[in-house]
Each structure stands twice: as C-alpha cells, then as structure tokens.
C-alpha cells in the first residue's frame, strides 16, 4: 500500500497537477478562440527554457525563476497571437489550428537554435525526500502541487470576481451576445492568451523541476493535456483540472502491478493511457465530465 502511495499515487498527483495547468489553458483558448491550440505544449517548453538561464547561470531558485518564465511565456504568446493568429481571426477556426501547428514547430526550432538540442537539469544531485510515517514525498513535489492549487484558486477568483474574468466566461459562452453587450473581444482574447501562457509557463518549469528540460517536454505533454481538456469538457476550466488529475493518475497507476509482479501496462506506453481515456470519453460523453461544449 505504501509502495502504491509513494511510487504511483504521489507521482500521479504531481503529473496530474502539471497537466491540469496546461489543460486549463487549452480549455480557455478553445472556449474563446474556438480552436485546438497545437502550440500549447511548446509554450510550456518555452517557459521551462526561459527559466533555465536564471536557475543555471544566475543560480536563482526555480521558484524565483517562476515569475520570469511566466512573464516570458506571456510575452511570447501575445507576440505570437499578434503575428500569426490575429491575421487569421476571420478565417474558419481550423485554419488557426493549421497555423498553430506551424507555430509549435517554430517555437521548438527557435528553442533548439538558441539552447541546443541537449537536455538540461535545473539542479543536479539527490534531494532526500521527506518521510511521514512511511509516506515519502520529495519536497519539490509538495511545492509543485501546492503552487498548482494556489494558481487554480487565483484563477478561480479571477474568473468569478473580476470584470475581465467574467467577460472571459461570457465571451466563451456566446461570442455574438458578448459583442452585442459591448465586450471588447480583442482585449479579452489577449487576457486569455496571457492566462493560458502563464499557466503553461509554470507547467513547463514544474516539469523541469520534476525531471529534466528537453525540447520535447511540451510535445510529449500535448496529448495528455488535450485529453484532460476533453475529459473535463471543453471551455470548462474546472473540468480541465479534474481531467488533468485523472489523466496524470491514470498514467502513473497504469504501471502499478495490480496482478502479480508485472505492471498493468508497460510504462513505455503511458501516453496510450491518455489517448485511450480521451477516445473513451469522446465515445461515451463528448461533452466531457463537466458538460462542456461539443463542436
């Protein structure tokens, strides 16, 4: 039992929290701009790399580098929107998907150009985990999950308490009515990018803290993050959180040796878990657990 908690449940929660941060962004962007943002994973990678020089060269703690990564990701997202997405706003939204596919590759190529193809670590060396009556938790895992909860609470307050947050939900609900009401659509879209990029940037740094930084971390997270967003219901940020946790836990627990000593599923096929859950959800209830939109 302890083994299950230490090696499957806790890593699953950590992974799930990180997925949730990505999935919220995907869900918000899908809800407001009506397209699956294929460059979202690479936005996470970008966050991880923005933090890199501050942590490795300047010796900041990753937590202090977090705001830098967030700001960098926000600036990049706003610039990308201005240059590549805004000119296509009047086109069918699938064209935006094609463009975002290209943007994903451009971000990755730019990162590889600047930082090279090698993998990096924020901090080398082994940290002793904390032990609570047999349950072993790495300190950074506590911080990652704690910060995720903090971010989600902040997001909740933003969406329900501020005028901009409410307008964001309104625009996601009904763009035509929002326009009639006088809501400044472009301004809300900019906010959506900023929020999505902020969370993606954090997620990237968290992945870097948890494992290592490579140019592929974002691409590898794209599928589980989309799966989480669909699971939770598109356009439902709270659903995306639940979806992220479910996918993260399912991926880790799928390797648990339920029967005998063999893992339930070979860990190399972890990403198949997200895919399977997503497909099952599309078949059973395309609107997701939280009854989002079906397009």
């Amino acid at each position, binding site marked *: 039992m302890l083994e299950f908690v230490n090696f499957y449940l806790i890593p699953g929660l950590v992974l799930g929290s990180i997925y949730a941060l990505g999935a919220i962004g995907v869900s918000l962007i899908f809800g407001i701009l009506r397209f699956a943002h294929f460059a979202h994973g690479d936005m996470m990678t970008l966050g991880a790399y923005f933090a890199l020089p501050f942590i490795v060269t300047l010796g900041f703690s990753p937590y202090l580098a977090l705001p830098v990564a967030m700001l960098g990701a926000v600036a990049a997202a706003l610039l990308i929107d201005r240059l590549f997405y805004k000119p296509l706003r009047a086109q069918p939204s699938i064209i935006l998907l094609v463009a975002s596919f290209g943007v994903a590759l451009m971000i990755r190529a730019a990162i590889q150009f600047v930082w090279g193809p090698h993998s990096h670590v924020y901090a080398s060396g082994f940290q002793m985990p904390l032990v609570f009556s047999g349950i072993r938790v790495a300190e950074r895992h506590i911080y990652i999950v704690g910060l995720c909860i903090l971010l989600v609470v902040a997001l909740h307050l933003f969406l329900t308490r501020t005028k901009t947050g*409410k*307008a964001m939900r*309104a625009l*996601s*609900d009904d763009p035509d009515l929002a*326009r*009639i*009401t*006088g809501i400044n659509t472009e301004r809300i879209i900019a906010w959506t990018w900023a929020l999505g990029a902020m969370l993606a940037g954090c997620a990237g740094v968290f992945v870097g803290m948890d494992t290592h930084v490579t140019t592929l971390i974002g691409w590898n997270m794209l599928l589980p993050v989309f799966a989480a967003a669909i699971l939770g219901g598109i356009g439902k940020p709270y659903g995306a959180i639940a979806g992220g946790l479910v996918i993260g836990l399912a991926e880790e627990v799928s390797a648990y040796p339920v029967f005998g000593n063999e893992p339930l599923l070979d860990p190399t096929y972890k990403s198949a878990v997200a895919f399977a859950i997503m497909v099952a959800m599309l078949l059973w209830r395309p609107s997701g657990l939280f009854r989002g939109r079906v397009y």
Partner: protein
Amino acid sequence: MTEQRLDATGLQGGYGGADVLHGVDLRVDPGEIVTIIGPNGAGKSTALKALFGLVQVHTGRVAYGDTDITHLMPDRITRLGIGYVPQERNVFVNLTVHENLEMGAYIRNDDISGHLARIYDLFPPLKEKRKEAAGLLSGGQRQMVAMGRALMLDPAVLLLDEPTAGLAPAFVDLIFERVQEINRAGIGILMVEQNARHALEIADRGYVLVNGANAFEDTGANLLANREVAEAFLGG
C-alpha cells in the same frame, strides 16, 4: 442619455445571400412604443437587426439623432444609447443572473449598484435567482435577464426581438406590463411581436411589414381598427 430620434429609411440588405429587406422605413421618436408586426418571414427581426448593425445594409440609412449609424458595429451602437435584446440566445447561460446583469454594464466604469437594485425591483423573480446560472431559468425569466442586461446602460431606445415568443400566457402579460413600465421611465421601445393584437394595444405606433417592405404604418389604435390589417394579420 439625451433623447433623440432613431430613424431608418429605405433599408435594403440581408445576411450576405439574397436580400431580405427591400426598402424598410422605421422610426422611433423619443419615449415612444413602436411595434413591428407582420407574417412569418416578412423580415421583421432582420429589420430590427439592421438598425443594430447586425445585418449587411447596402442601401438606405439608419440615423440616431444627427449620427449616421448605418455601418457602425453593434458595440459602438450600444455606446450611443441603443440597447438590443435578441430573441434567442439572449443570456450567458453559464453566468449567474447577477453576472449577466453586470456584463450588461461592461463598458461602464462607475458604480452600478443603483441600476442592479432598480432591475431587481422591476423583475423581482430575478432577485431570488441572482446566484443561479441563467441557463437554468425558464424562458420568461431569461427574457427578464436579457432586458435587464440591456437596461444596465441606461439606453434611450430599447430594441426587443419578439420578447414574448414561446412564453406561457401569464409571462406574456407580465412582459408587456414591464415593457410599458420601462417606457414610462422615458425609454423608447421598438419591438417585433408575434402577439400582434396585444402589441398594438400598448403601442403608440405600429408598422406592418410584408415581404421585407413596409405595408402599413399608423398609430396602434388605428391599425387595430383597420379592417384590412385585422383580417390579414390579426387573425380576423
């Protein structure tokens, strides 16, 4: 808001394909209740949308006071003091009633608590449901939310697209009552209505639209008394 006349002349246009409007004139003087009636497919709702910049108008002109608003975007028209309440999809279903009303005041930056209080007084059922998602309300309650939202900006003219469509009879009477009450506060009303008789009873003036053009135009009372109108459009 200063009170000005909303005046549309010779509107032709539609949604990009074939024209729906073939020359429509509409006018709302300050503080009037004006209704547009006519058979299905006559272009009543389209005419209303044309005033609000939601339809492509290629001939004709819409003026509000001295301002030409023919080709303005809806959000600009809203700022000039014209409110529009769509027939369908007229509330943000995932926002609470209260948030819906707040969104109505999105472009205002001043204190709106007085407005909220007045709207809750006008529509008491909304006060009880203010924390509920608007999507869970009945059709009549949604209509109240939609009208309330449009009133948040103190419009001088309110455009209502079939406010009583699909509502239970009790709600129909209530909505008409509220429309009159809103009008008593000096707000001009232009509404498209299926309940033609009822609408003409409360209207100062009415237009009958047929095939995208004006067929009759007169005071509400005169139109009700007009035999031809009565036979063709008021169910005899």
